[in-house]
């Protein structure tokens, strides 16, 4: 790695980290019980002079939620980036490819069996996502290297898988009589409110996934040149692709089992940064991670503040922003 790229990575990381911290503090300062910017800063600086309820709200309610939003946003953006590189398709994303749907089926099955969030729901959801992944890639003929990958068949396979998963999910819900249904429905819409404080340590599991993906940034660059070129440059294409697919699916499953289905983050964020920074994954991996985290914190803040009473599931906000953008990209790609 030469020094100039190293410097750029460092610069981007510092800038986006600063942005993430700023947005994080704003999100911690605002909520349904009011917005208290200076008071929040005072409490976070350790001054306990103000009243107890505000401190509880900040430390125990808003902070865990902002941390969750950051991890979810970062993981989904990174997941989108990896799928787009592997499939050489700018429209690939875990949600659109049906991977999220597959892991949702697994997660709902586990919830109906009253398994614990971890490891029960996570393992079921990981299994579900791997099954869908295997099916979609087989369908598109992209499995590990022979056929030329076809953008349309891949997307179509994903759309069909998504529809199929949605039907299975509806079936499972219609068969459920208990009031679990309500919980599952909100979870499906993508909801950060159901998170328990005790679940935060589970998020640490995605950190090694981040590391591995960052270390594979250079091979991802070479993969973009085509599999033959990458192989000629000394890359074991089959192993790298396999490793990335499994790591990314694991990361997405952990996130889905905690936050439900949140779509389009993995589409919007990588696209913005590819426009700004170019195609180098050594820059894009940290940028998507930090940018995705900031983006979802912001979306979650909107979800909490927009309705006059109660709150929206954040998946609705990300879809309202992401779907129109997806259409714009689709039109641009055609021309």
């Amino acid at each position, binding site marked *: 790695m030469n020094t100039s790229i190293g410097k750029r990575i460092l610069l981007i990381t510092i800038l986006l980290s600063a942005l993430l911290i700023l947005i994080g503090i704003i999100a911690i300062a605002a909520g349904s019980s009011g917005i208290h910017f200076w008071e929040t800063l005072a409490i976070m600086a350790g001054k306990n002079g103000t009243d107890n*309820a505000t401190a509880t709200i900040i430390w125990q309610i808003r902070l865990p939620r902002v941390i969750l939003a950051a991890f979810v946003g970062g993981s989904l953006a990174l997941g989108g980036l990896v799928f787009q590189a592997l499939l050489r398709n700018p429209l690939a994303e875990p949600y659109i490819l049906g991977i999220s749907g597959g892991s949702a089926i697994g997660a709902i099955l586990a919830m109906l069996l009253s398994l614990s969030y971890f490891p029960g729901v996570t393992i079921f959801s990981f299994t579900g996502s791997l099954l869908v992944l295997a099916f979609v890639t087989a369908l598109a003929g992209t499995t590990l290297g022979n056929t030329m990958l076809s953008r349309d068949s891949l997307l179509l396979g994903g759309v069909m898988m998504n529809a199929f998963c949605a039907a299975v999910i509806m079936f499972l819900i219609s068969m459920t009589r208990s009031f679990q249904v309500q919980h599952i429905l909100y979870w499906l819409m993508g909801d950060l409110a159901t998170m328990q*404080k005790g679940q935060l340590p589970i998020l640490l599991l995605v950190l090694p996934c981040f590391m591995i993906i960052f270390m594979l940034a250079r091979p991802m660059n070479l993969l973009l040149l085509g599999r033959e070129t990458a192989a000629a440059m000394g890359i074991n294409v089959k192993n790298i692709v396999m490793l990335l697919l499994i790591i990314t699916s694991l990361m997405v499953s952990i996130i889905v089992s905690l936050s439900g289905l949140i779509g389009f983050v993995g589409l919007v964020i990588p696209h913005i940064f590819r426009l700004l920074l170019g195609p180098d994954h050594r820059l894009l991996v940290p940028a998507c991670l930090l940018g995705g985290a900031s983006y979802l914190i912001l979306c979650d803040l909107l979800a909490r503040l927009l309705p006059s009473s109660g709150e929206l599931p954040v998946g609705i906000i990300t879809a309202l922003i992401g779907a129109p953008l997806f259409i714009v990209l689709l039109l641009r790609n055609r021309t």
Partner: protein
Amino acid sequence: MPRNVHIIFFLAVLFLLQPGNMFAGTVTDQVGRTLMVPENPQRVVALAPSITEIIYDLGQEDRLVGVTQYSTYPSEAQSLPRVGSYVRLDIEKIVALKPDLCLATKDGNPKHIVDKIVNLGIPVYVINPRNLQQIMDTVTGLGSLLHAEKAASKLVFEMEKRIGQVQERVKNEPSRPRVFFQIDAEPLFSAGTDTFIHELIELAGGINTTAGEVSYPRYTWEDIIVLQPEIVLISSMAGGLTPEYLLNSWKKWDLVSAVKNDRIFVVDAELFDRPTPRLVQGLEVIAAILHPELFVQDGKKTEE
């Protein structure tokens, strides 16, 4: 009036006159959780409309600092701060109200949210009434939590008296009409055995045609023609539709006995969908519909 009602009342009074050892700090709620409660709660948040209603019934609304979205009865409750709806509670707003006690219901408030509130150091007392007797127990329990024992026993006495009166009247009535209670329209939903509506129909001297394991079973018109209910009761909330529309949707099925004999009635949903003392009023409404000859004339003749 039946004698056993007097005895129950007597026992209830005896029970309540006991020195207050059960409210000295630690109590067990209706789902068997043990919790510490304040000696004299001053800032109570009611996490369901039914709880709000019972607190007003007990005259303890001064202690109430927060209610949920659909707390519409009594109307004064609507001016209190809202903490979200009972299934989607806004924890941040609850904490901001600085409650010293939250009152929750097992049937409605998600357990993980109740756990979250408890983890934030706020005591949560969970009620779980499954039948009329348990509603009276709930009234007694909340009465002792909120230092309103007298009002609670008066309310329970009143409920028992009115339930007793209905039972007394239908006791010797040989006819037991077959009832279909429609709680929702398009699709049709009714009430199974483990519901208040089932209990009210039975107490009012009727047979619930949709008795069964499933609490809120779904029906089709085909099923209803087979069921042949003699009386149809329609909840006024069914499907968000107007009473005229709901009545008309039955009219075309004139091979159903209730339709043929024009015994279809729209009843006020509020009297049937909340586990509160108002269910007794619902019982009286159903009884008067099932056995008009026993109630209408009687009510005019004597005022017991």
